[in-house]
């Protein structure tokens, strides 16, 4: 559990982070969203003490971070940045092994850990491992950066705009990777981004920051349903908020057994994890008002347009 208690950072009399109090549950992914200059990166960097708070405390699992030597603290916290920051004179494998080596792991352990991580992130250890960073594509470098951050099995991972430099296709892939890895390892993640769509897609809770303060801290569905301030609503973009809301909910929630439907639906069966937004999009695109959705426990279910439209409006 990460606790920020009345944390502030003042530069030249200006509070970049202004009295922020947040509690982040273990194993969750929290996105900190804001425009540039909102203080979101500074907030993140106060967790691993790259920036020292002017006032307030940061606690990790009840321990005050201020009394732990900074390098020792940072070795327990994964850190991923936008330009990946790989060491250009080291191979990908040596980059990934940085923290285990600092921690004095045995060489064989470092090597097997590096292989394990590269395989988890779909990087071929024999091909990518010996390459230098300038020989990697943007997506590969980003994944090497994530592998390096996870190398010493940190329980907390800080990510500062980790996908900002990637093209949209690679970015979607990298986001999916993060989601998978985070669910698998149960790592607590704090993700700083200016992209609200990314935050909605990935986060368990979203903290919206503006001028150093938290405007709203809530699960994505609540942020969409009840934006606390006009700024949050603006950041959300009101035009398509219903679709965003639908994109958070699995279509299976409103599916009924196929047989009970008034007339069977035709057309392809959507996968079981399809969201309501995907189901609605499929209906619009194929000109139907009902689609079938796979059900792992039996026959495909059926989703109707009325059910989706009802579900897309928060009570």
């Amino acid at each position, binding site marked *: 559990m990460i606790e920020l208690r009345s944390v502030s950072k003042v530069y030249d009399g200006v509070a970049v982070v202004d009295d922020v109090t947040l509690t982040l549950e273990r194993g969750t992914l929290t996105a900190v969203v804001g425009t540039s200059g909102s203080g979101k990166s500074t907030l993140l960097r106060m967790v*691993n003490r*790259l920036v020292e708070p002017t006032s307030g405390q940061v606690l990790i699992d009840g321990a005050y971070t201020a009394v732990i030597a*900074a*390098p*020792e*603290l*940072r*070795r*327990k916290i994964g*850190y991923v*940045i*936008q*330009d*990946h*920051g*790989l*060491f*250009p*004179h*080291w*191979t990908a494998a040596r980059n990934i092994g*940085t*923290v285990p080596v*600092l921690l004095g792991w045995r060489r064989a352990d470092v090597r097997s850990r590096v292989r394990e991580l590269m395989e988890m992130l779909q990087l071929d250890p024999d091909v990518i491992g010996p390459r*230098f*960073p*300038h020989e990697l594509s943007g997506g590969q470098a980003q994944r090497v*950066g994530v592998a*390096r951050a996870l190398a010493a099995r940190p329980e907390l991972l*800080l990510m500062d705009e980790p996908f900002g430099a990637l093209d949209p296709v690679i970015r979607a892939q990298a986001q999916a990777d993060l989601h998978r890895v985070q669910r698998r390892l149960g790592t607590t993640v704090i993700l700083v981004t200016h992209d609200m769509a990314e935050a909605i897609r990935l986060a368990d809770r979203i903290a919206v920051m503006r001028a150093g303060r938290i405007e709203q801290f809530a699960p994505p569905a609540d942020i969409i349903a009840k934006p606390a301030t006009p700024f949050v609503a603006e950041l959300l973009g009101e035009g398509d908020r219903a679709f965003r809301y639908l994109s958070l909910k699995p279509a299976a929630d409103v599916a009924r057994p196929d047989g009970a439907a008034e007339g069977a639906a035709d057309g392809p069966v959507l996968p079981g994890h399809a969201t309501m937004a995907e189901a609605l999009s499929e209906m619009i695109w194929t000109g139907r008002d009902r689609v079938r959705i796979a059900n792992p426990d039996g026959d495909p279910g059926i989703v109707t347009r009325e059910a989706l439209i009802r579900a897309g409006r928060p009570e």
Partner: protein
Amino acid sequence: MRGGIRLLFLPLALSPLLPFAVFRANRIAQGEPRSLVETLGAGPAALAVAALAGGIAALAFARRPAWGAAIAAALILGIVLAAGWGASSLMAGVPTQARVSPGAGFWVALVAAALLLIDALARMRPRPALRLALVGFAVAAGALLLSSGALSQLSVMQEYRNRSAAFWREGASHLWLAFGSFAAAMLAGVPLGIALTRRAGARGSVLGLLTMLQTIPSMALFGMLIVPLGWLAANLPAAHALGIRGIGAAPAFVALFLYSLLPIVANTVAGITGVPRSVTEAADGMGLTRRQRLFHVDVPLALPVIITAARIVLVQNIGMATVGALIGAGGFGTFVFQGIGQTATDLILLGALPTVALASATSAVMDALIGMLPGGAR
């Protein structure tokens, strides 16, 4: 070969029209020019011109730089051997105090061929290991040529034979002056540069001071050092015991050291501040201590820039160490200034040629070292 470098074919082709050798009745007499035909004899001269023409034609049609390099190297070897052979034939039957030196034709041909070789080598883009091998090969070939006796009748070699003990002694002091002051400047300059990256306030004034030192002419700097070093020698027995004097090697060493500092300090600062911010941020974020970041990240990444400075400083020191001879510091400069004093051109060459060879070989080795640094550090 293609491009503007082909312009060098012209001086190469016309060089046989210039005097190939200079004959002197004794080592300080007025020189008399000797043409290629007079030097080698009509038959061998015709052969030499034919070989030169063949070499130029081969260079013109050489498609691959490696062939161009091989042909240019062969031309250089041929030109040098021709001078040695010509000297022997001119010396045949004349009194032993007579001297034969290379003439304008020799120098023009040699310089043109050397430039063609350098160009071809640059186009080859050899890997660092091959470059080191080429330097080793050139040094070995030169040593073999000099020890073979093929050049023994050239005046510069006679000067060498008369002073061989002094030659090696001065060579050793030249190396000590150039490399010793370089090593001292690296030991002082790199830590100073690192310290300056952490104290941006002091950076401007220290670099300014070093720049000012750099603008002092070497003779003036020697003069300025005579007083404090002389005082040290007179008042500190330990300093005196170390060989520190107002004149001699000590002020030359100190002057070379001071001149070396600016490139080393400035490049250390530039190299370390040039490490990308994302890399230093990642290093801090990973939990590297300051010391670990310095030795594992900052310095390795700054190394190409620092070694570039080292190369500049070494070549500069090898050249400037010659001037130290003026205040009794020794080194190859001793022969240069003796030669000037005696108007003995060949004695000047005895000091100048090894200096040039040393500087070129050092520069090539340092370039190869820079190329050997790993990964994206290049």
